[in-house]
């Protein structure tokens, strides 16, 4: 990737709402160049989606989502290995992240729901009952400290003297 592409990508990764104007001025390129570049990264599928990091604690009571991290062990299938099973799991709306991992289990699946019950029933009715899923271990997330490289619940930053030499 050329350095300008990489820098544009780094800026929108850190702040998806940064305007093309601001990106252009920071990188000393034209606004048109930024827009062409972003469009091409989008059509190539390099940029898949712009999302937001939310601190659910700050939302009004009960409107936040509940998240769990599920270790899934499977029996790989003839010919398709992990792929066919993975496709079945990843399609569920409750699944927000899904990875094949090395180590003691096969898939790390992160699911989200409105309540504990919703997630429990998703695990027992949908996930555990898929053919060739051998076992699951569900860990409910109790507190979020950091997401996508961003610390959650940090105190505000400005402690500097307003004028200094």
């Amino acid at each position, binding site marked *: 990737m050329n350095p300008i592409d990489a820098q544009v990508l780094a*800026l929108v990764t850190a702040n998806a709402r940064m305007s093309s104007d601001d990106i252009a*001025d*920071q990188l000393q390129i034209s606004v048109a160049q930024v827009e062409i570049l972003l469009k091409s990264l989008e059509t190539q599928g390099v940029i898949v989606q712009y999302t937001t990091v939310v601190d659910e604690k700050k939302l009004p009571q009960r409107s936040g989502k509940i998240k769990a991290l599920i270790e899934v062990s499977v029996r790989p299938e003839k010919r398709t290995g992990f792929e066919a099973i993975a496709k079945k799991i990843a399609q569920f709306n409750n699944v927000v992240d899904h990875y094949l991992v090395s180590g003691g289990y096969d898939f790390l699946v992160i699911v989200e729901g409105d309540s504990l019950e919703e997630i429990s029933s998703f695990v027992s009715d949908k996930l555990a009952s898929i053919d060739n899923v051998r076992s699951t271990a569900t860990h409910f997330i109790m507190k979020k400290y950091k997401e996508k490289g961003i610390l959650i619940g940090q105190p505000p*930053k400005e402690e*500097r*003297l*307003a*004028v*200094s030499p």
Partner: protein
Amino acid sequence: MKSDFSHILDTIPPSGIRKFFDLVIGAKDVISLGVGEPDFRTPWAIREDAIFSLEQGKTSYTSNSGLLECREAIVDYLAQRFDAHYDPTTEILLTFGVSEAVDIVLRSILNPGDEVIVPEPSYVCYTPLVQLAGGKVIPLDTTSTQFIPDPDQIARAITPKTKAIILCSPSNPTGRTIPKDTLIQIGKLAQAHDFWIITDEVYAELTYDGPFQSVAALPNLKPSTILLNGFSKAFAMTGWRLGYVCGPPELIARATKIHQYSALCAPITAQYAAIEAVKNCAKDVQAMRDSYKGRRNLFVKRLNEIGLPTALPEGAFYCFPNIRHTGLSSEEFALRLLKEQRVAVVPGYVFGLGGEGHIRCCYATGLEELKEALTRIKKFMKSLQ
């Protein structure tokens, strides 16, 4: 008798920055472009090593010159990063920031009446500290060479009493860096007339358009060079108070003599933190540098667009817009901008000759605040028409 204080001290006016600070403190909803420090916290790996050193009970004095392990780590870093080579046992002393280093270096070399050339506008501590050390400042106005010290002008200022020149590149307040050729020419003058080059390189890591040139890395100049650097800016460690001076053993021995009586040693926790900083934090420094560079580009371009002519500075995190066409003095401009639009900047006159007609803006502040500051400055400029 008690009412008779130090006479030299009483001739030195209080810092113009201090005066402005007192005004800003009372004001509400102010966006400050008046700061002189990073807007990052110290990288966590550095803080964590400092905490670990405390857990290990490392709370004693260190040797006067600083922990050998820390001096070695810094010397290795200077060699790798800037091609400046020093002996960790005799050619480096750890100090309370570059601030203490400036003070004790001047006190080590100056006798009453010795002259120190200071290209201005310059960082605010040089002149008072020269005076307190009994020296005489020969200020040079660098306006006509776009704030880059001019070897011809320096040559004309040299007298038999010239003991040193103080260079600061990248510069506070202008952000300009001194090109290699110019440094070589100044170096020739220093060798021919046998005076010191005191080079304050505290912003060396914050150079945006090419590699940084240390004076200490120029051929044959090491014996004439007193290198000052520190952790405040590059590693976002202003509050830790750690800097260092590198130079010939005979100079370091003398600076150490003062330091042992007036400071004893630099803070030990900061020294342990510094080891991690120079050994393992190049990536953090790079990320901060990239971030400042983007803000510099945006802020300086837009200052020009709203009618404040501003040269693109090569380093540090300051720019130095020209405000002469507004007809206001730098102090009036800064005071009115603060009062009418709640943006704090530092009036240029506080930085000495050539500073008048300019304001210093620090862009080490969030992008949204910078944009809001630009909006307010634009309104202010409109109101002047």
